[in-house]
């Protein structure tokens, strides 16, 4: 699933605060993994991939209100640690463009970053057995299914927030209303599944194109040169 478009002030404080804390830890761990890297090669790569992600995210597929995000491509090209940082940068930039909230940067980075990590891992597992296009496409679909479930989990967790229920104000946030994570899940999965296929097709084609034109980007030569990983 793409990043959440949930704006500020909607999710309970505990949920987004936890998201920010886990994100801070994950960013710190990613930076630790990247210590001693060749900055000359990685910073431009990080900037370029994050910028392409932003351009892709700004192109909305109108009838579906869906946009591709290329997080799996970022994971495949940059590796898990740098891919996670690209997800953080893309989300921060999006928030600075008024697209998505500030408080949900943590949760959005975790969702998008986990797509980069999962996509990277699955792609390199499949690549040994099947062609590049299908490896990237299948890795994308599986990754998006998992992160969509994570998104539904976040929404479910936010619906049962006791603080929200007990301090709902004069009218009460839940007064007269029935909570339905099921409705949310049905809407997200039905719209999202079309998006998964589009994202998978585009990711597969982009990765195949890069494999044909500039295969060294996929071979992770830039990452291995200095890190020895």
């Amino acid at each position, binding site marked *: 699933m793409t990043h959440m478009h949930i704006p500020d*002030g909607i999710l309970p404080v505990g949920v987004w605060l936890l998201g920010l804390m886990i994100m801070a830890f994950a960013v710190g761990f990613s*930076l630790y993994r990247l210590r001693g890297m060749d900055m000359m090669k990685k910073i431009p790569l990080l*900037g370029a991939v994050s910028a392409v992600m932003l351009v892709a995210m700004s192109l909305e597929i109108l009838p579906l209100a869906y946009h591709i995000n290329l997080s799996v491509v970022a994971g495949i090209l940059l590796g898990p640690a740098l891919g996670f940082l690209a997800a953080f940068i893309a989300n921060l930039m999006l928030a600075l463009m*008024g697209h998505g*909230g500030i408080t949900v940067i943590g949760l959005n980075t975790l969702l998008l970053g986990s797509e980069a990590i999962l996509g990277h891992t699955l792609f390199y597992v499949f690549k040994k057995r099947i062609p590049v296009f299908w490896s990237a496409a299948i890795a994308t679909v599986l990754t998006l299914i998992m992160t969509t479930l994570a998104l539904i989990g976040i929404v479910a967790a936010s619906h049962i927030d006791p603080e929200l229920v007990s301090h709902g104000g004069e009218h009460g*946030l839940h007064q007269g*209303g029935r909570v339905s994570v099921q409705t949310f899940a049905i809407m997200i999965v039905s719209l999202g599944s079309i998006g998964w296929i589009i994202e998978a097709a585009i990711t597969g084609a982009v990765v195949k194109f890069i494999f044909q034109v500039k295969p060294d980007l996929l071979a992770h030569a830039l990452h291995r040169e200095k890190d020895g990983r």
Partner: protein
Amino acid sequence: MIDVARIDHWAASGSGPFHRASTAAKLLFLFFVVSAAVLSRNPYPLIAGYGVLLAVAAAAGLPWFRVMGLSWYAALFAILYAISFRGGTWLAALFIVKAITPSFAMLMLIVSTPYPKIFALFSAVLPEILAAGLFMTYRTLFILLDMMDSFAAAIRMRGGFSPGSLYKNSANISKGIGMLMVRAVERASRLYAVMVVRGYNGSMAEKGAVHFQRQDWLPLGAGTVVLMLVIVWK
């Protein structure tokens, strides 16, 4: 599509009181408005707060009408979320104003502050790779937007866009994105090499020292009014 180039133009070309205020004050203003949205359990004070922000934006010469339109983009997902609650119009109204008020404040910040100024402030607290990555992303984004425009024109002129064929369009767009990715990496590498040759060593030329000035009364005052509305009007 997010009109990044237009936002950047507004940020760099304006000279109103909001433009003259310090970046730190405007970030504090944003913090107050986001806090107000988080604390609010009632849509009315936030509706009033949105009105205050509209008035301030108009008085400060910001493109308030365009900003208002952009801020409503945040309402789309809020509506979806409100539907899942089945809480009626009152709850939907609360979610919508919780979405659009901070969004409007964020847009007021970015249409009055060039991105490098915001990044300079971030670079004081962020690790070098993230600060440099943010700047490289911002710089590469504008190069890519130009390339994207040229690509869209080229694909139309060469008959690569067929309104009826989803398969053909997807294949061409994918190749375009692939080409964009390869060229973005090349351009960014070249740009970074030039920056290093010219003395870039990982830090921004303009350090983001936090300092306040007389013109800061407008963002600080507006942010405080919105926050007080939510605290007092329960």
